[in-house]
C-alpha cells in the first residue's frame, strides 16, 4: 500500500472540518461576511464588539452594588473605589481597556442605545480607579523587570492611579506598615523541612524581604508549590492594596479559559472547598490585620465611603471576563490595538512543569477537539457549593478552611504509627487494636491547624524526586520567614480562628492554682 497522492487522488486528503455551523455570514446581522468564529458561530467585527461589551457588563454590573441582586438598572452605586489587578497578560490588559472605555471615558460605542443622554448609566461609577501591578521577576532567575513597560501601558489611559508592587512586599514589614497596619510582631517563622510545620523563632532575626522571599520559595517542596505560592502572594497583596485604596471591588482579568484552568488546577490541588471563591469572592480582613482607624479615616474623607464605618470593610473580587474566552479577548485586543506587554513563563533551570502548567496545556489541547470544554467546566463548577463546616480562614491564603481536614488526612494515609506485632489470623488470638487517627501528642506550636487543605498540601506534599530550587545558592534556612499577614495573625495568637478548639498557639503560660480551680470549681466539693 502506498501513500495517496493528493494531486491525482482527491480522496487522499482528509476533508477539512468546517469551523462554523452554517454560513460564513455573521449570525447577528446576517448580511456581512464574518470575521471571527466563536464556538461554531460566526460574527462580523461590528457585531462582535457590542457582543463582548454586553457580556462584560452582564457579568460585572450585578456585582457592583453592595446588595448584589438589588435594582441596578437605574444606578450603579458601589460602596468604595475600584482596584484593577494588572498582570500584563492578555486578559487583564483587555479588562483595563474595557473598564476605561465603559466606566471612565464613557465611550459611546460601549453604551447601549436606549436610555437617553441623562441616563444614570452615563455617570461615572467608581470615583477613583487604581491599577495595581505585582512584579514577580525577583522570584525567578533571569526574569525581566516589566514595571516600566506596565507603567507606560497604564499611562495610555488617563485618570488612573498606578500602584506598582513587588512580590517580595509580601515579606516586607515596611510595606505592611505603609498599608496602615502595625508591624510589631516577633520574629517567628516555620520549619518547612518536615510535615509538622513547626513554628519557631528566626534565629538570625527577620531577613530582608528579598532574601525572605527566595528562602521561602527555595524551601517549598515542588514546582507546583512555588507557582501556587506566588499566585497566593499576588492575590493577597492585591486584596490588601484594595483595602488600602478604599476599594470595594477588585477586578481581575481572568477569562473563561483561564478560569477553567484555575478551577481544574484548584481541584487537582485539593481546593474543592473553595471552588466558589475561584469565581467570585467576598474578602474581609482579619480583625488584627485591619488598618488602624486613623489611617483609614484619612482615606474615607476622599473616598466613596465617606461617613461610613470602616471596620466591616469587605473587598469583592470579581472576574468580569469569566464569560469571555481567550480567543475573544485576543480579537478585542487586536481590533482595539492594545499593546499587550505579556508575561514570562515561571521557569528555572531543571524545573518540571507544575500542576498549573500541566492543566493549562491539557485544557487548551482538549479544547481543540471539544470546543465547549472550558465553558462546560465553568458552568459545572458554578453548580457546586462547599460541603461541610467552615473552620475559620486560612492563615496563608485567607480563604475559608474546611473543618476536619487533618483528621481526614491522618485516616487515609497512615504516616507515623508503628505496626502492631504480627498476628496470625488463624491462631485464634485477639485481633490487633483498631487504628484510630493518631492523637496529636506533639504539643509544640505548628502552623498546620491554621491552614486550609490546599495550603497545607502546598507546604508539605513532596515530589517523588528532588526538585531543583530556583535559587540554589540562596542561604538554606531551617526556619523560613512567613508572609507579613501570616506573621500578623500569629503575632495576635491567630485570634478569631476557631480551629482547633480555639487553642492559643504562641503563648504557653503556666496555669496557676487559682486559675485551675476557677475552671473546675463547679466539680469541687466543699471542704
Amino acid at each position, binding site marked *: 500500500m502506498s501513500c495517496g497522492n493528493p494531486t491525482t487522488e482527491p480522496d487522499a486528503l482528509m476533508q477539512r472540518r468546517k469551523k462554523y455551523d452554517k454560513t460564513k455570514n455573521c449570525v447577528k446581522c446576517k448580511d456581512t461576511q464574518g470575521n471571527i468564529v466563536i464556538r461554531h458561530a460566526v460574527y462580523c467585527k461590528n457585531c462582535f464588539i457590542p457582543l463582548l461589551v454586553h457580556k462584560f457588563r452582564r457579568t460585572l454590573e450585578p456585582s457592583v452594588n453592595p446588595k448584589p441582586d438589588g435594582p441596578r438598572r437605574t444606578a450603579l452605586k458601589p460602596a468604595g473605589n475600584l482596584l484593577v489587578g494588572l498582570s500584563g497578560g492578555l486578559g487583564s490588559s483587555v479588562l483595563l481597556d474595557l473598564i476605561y472605555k465603559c466606566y471612565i471615558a464613557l465611550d459611546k460605542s460601549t453604551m447601549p442605545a436606549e436610555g437617553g443622554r441623562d441616563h444614570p448609566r452615563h455617570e461615572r461609577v467608581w470615583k477613583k480607579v487604581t491599577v495595581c501591578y505585582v512584579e514577580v521577576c525577583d522570584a525567578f532567575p533571569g526574569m525581566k523587570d516589566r514595571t516600566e513597560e506596565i507603567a507606560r501601558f497604564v499611562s495610555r489611559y488617563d485618570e488612573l492611579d498606578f500602584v506598582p508592587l513587588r512580590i517580595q512586599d509580601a515579606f516586607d514589614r515596611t510595606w505592611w506598615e505603609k498599608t496602615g497596619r502595625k508591624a510589631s510582631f516577633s520574629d517567628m517563622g516555620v520549619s518547612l523541612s518536615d510535615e509538622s510545620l513547626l513554628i519557631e523563632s528566626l534565629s538570625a532575626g527577620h531577613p530582608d524581604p528579598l532574601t525572605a522571599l527566595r528562602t521561602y520559595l527555595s524551601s517549598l517542596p515542588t514546582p507546583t508549590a512555588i507557582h501556587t505560592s506566588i499566585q497566593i502572594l499576588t492575590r493577597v497583596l492585591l486584596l490588601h492594596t484594595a483595602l488600602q485604596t478604599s476599594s470595594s471591588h477588585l477586578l481581575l482579568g481572568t477569562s473563561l479559559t483561564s478560569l477553567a484552568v484555575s478551577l481544574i488546577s484548584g481541584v487537582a490541588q485539593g481546593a474543592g472547598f473553595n471552588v466558589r471563591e475561584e469565581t467570585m469572592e467576598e474578602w474581609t480582613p482579619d480583625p488584627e490585620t485591619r488598618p488602624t482607624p486613623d489611617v483609614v479615616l484619612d482615606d474615607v474623607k476622599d473616598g466613596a465611603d465617606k461617613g461610613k464605618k470602616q471596620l466591616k470593610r469587605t473587598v469583592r473580587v470579581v472576574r468580569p471576563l469569566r464569560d469571555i474566552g481567550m480567543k475573544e479577548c485576543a480579537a478585542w485586543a487586536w481590533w482595539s490595538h492594545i499593546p499587550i506587554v505579556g508575561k514570562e513563563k515561571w521557569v528555572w533551570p531543571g524545573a518540571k512543569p507544575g500542576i498549573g502548567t500541566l492543566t493549562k496545556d491539557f485544557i487548551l489541547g482538549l479544547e481543540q477537539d471539544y470546543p465547549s470544554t472550558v465553558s462546560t467546566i465553568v458552568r459545572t463548577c458554578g453548580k457546586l457549593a462547599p460541603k461541610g463546616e467552615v473552620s475559620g480562614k486560612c492563615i496563608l491564603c485567607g480563604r475559608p478552611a474546611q473543618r476536619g481536614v487533618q483528621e481526614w488526612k491522618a485516616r487515609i494515609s497512615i504516616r507515623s504509627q508503628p505496626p502492631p506485632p504480627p498476628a496470625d*489470623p488463624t491462631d485464634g488470638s485477639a485481633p490487633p487494636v483498631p487504628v484510630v487517627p493518631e492523637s496529636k501528642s506533639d504539643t509544640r506550636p505548628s502552623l498546620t491547624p491554621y491552614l486550609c487543605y490546599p495550603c497545607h498540601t502546598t507546604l508539605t506534599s513532596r515530589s517523588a524526586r528532588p526538585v531543583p530550587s530556583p535559587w540554589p545558592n540562596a542561604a538554606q534556612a531551617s526556619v523560613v520567614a512567613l508572609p507579613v499577614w501570616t506573621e500578623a495573625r500569629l503575632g495576635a495568637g491567630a485570634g478569631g480562628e476557631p480551629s482547633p478548639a480555639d487553642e492559643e498557639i504562641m503563648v504557653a503560660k503556666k496555669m496557676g492554682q487559682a486559675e485551675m480551680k476557677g475552671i473546675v470549681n463547679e466539680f469541687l466539693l466543699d471542704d
Partner: protein
Amino acid sequence: MPPRTCALCNDARAILKRPKTGQQICKECFFYVFETEVHNTITEARLFKPGDRVAIGASGGKDSTVLAHVMKTLNERYKYGLELFLLSIDEGITGYRDDSLETVKRNQQQYDMPLKILSYDELYGWTMDAIVAQIGKKNNCTFCGVFRRQALDRGAAILNVDHIVTGHNADDIAETVLMNIMRGDIARLGRCTSICTQGEDTIKRSKPFKYAYEKEIVMYAYFKKLDYFSTECIYSPDAYRGHARAFLKDLEAARPSAIIDIIHSGEAFEIKEDVKATQKIQQTCRRCGYMSSNELCKACTLLEGLERGMATAAVTDRARKRLDADGPAPENLRTIPMFQLPSAPRQKPTTTAVEGTT
C-alpha cells in the same frame, strides 16, 4: 550509602517508597498500612454489619484480585463476620475475559469463596463480540458499561447478597471526578466520590479501595505474589476517559498527592440545592423493573436498539427519536428478565455496623 531504615517501624530495612506518601518503608509495614487504611475506610463509612453477605465484583484483574485477598484478611483479622462471595461478569469478548476468568476460578479455590459467573449472553442474549459486530467499535463502551452495571446487580440478586464491593481505586475515582467536571455530568459528579451508593431499588454497592493508589495495589499484589491478568480491552477505549487518565498520570508525576487531593476536592463540594431540584427523579423501568431515569432503563433501550437493528438508539437523542418514530417495540422483542431485589428474609444478628472497636 548505608541502607535506609523503615520510616514507620524504624527497625527493618526500607525496601520501597510509598507512592501515596513518599515514605521509605519495609515490606511488613507496607502490608500493615495498606490493609489498615482499607480497614479505616470500611469502619469510618460503617460499610458492613456482622452477618452481611457480600459479593466481591471479581474480574481477575489486579484491583479485584487484591480486593478479594484484603477482604478475606480483614474479615478474619477484625472479625467482621461477613460471608464473602465472588461474582464475575463474562462480557463475551473472545481473548479478553477467558484468561482472567481462570484467575477468578483460582481465587475461588484459594480463598474458599463461592463463585458466580454471569454472562451477557445468558442475561441479554448478546455477547460483546456480537454487539461490536453490529455497531462497530465506536460507542461500544456505552453498551458494555450499562450492561455490566445491571449484570452485577442481577448476579448479586441471584447470590442473594446484601452488598457488592468493587475494586475501584483512588486513581479511578480521581479520574471520574475530573471527567465529570469536564463533560458537565453534574449528577454523576455529585455521587462519584461516595464510598457507598444505594438506591431504593438497588443493592448496596461500595468501594473499599477508594483511597488506595493503583500503584500500591500493584505493589501489594507483587509482594504478596498474587497473580492477576493485566489485559487491555481489545475494543476501542473510551477516548475521553483516556484523555483524563493521561492527564491524571501527569498530575501524579508532578505531585503524587494529586490523586488524593482530587478525591478530597470531590468530597469537599456538593451540588447546590437549586440544581438538585432540577435533576431527574429516579423511577423503575416498566419493562425490566431496574432503576431508571426514564420510562425505559438504558439497558432495555440499548437492547431494543440492538434487536431492532438500530443500535445507537440509546447513545444519541436523535437516534432515540428515530427509534420512537419507527413505531412501538414488537410483541416478541427479546427483553431482560424482570429485576427483583434479594427478598428472601434471612435471620441476621441484631448487631451494629462493623466499627473500629470490634
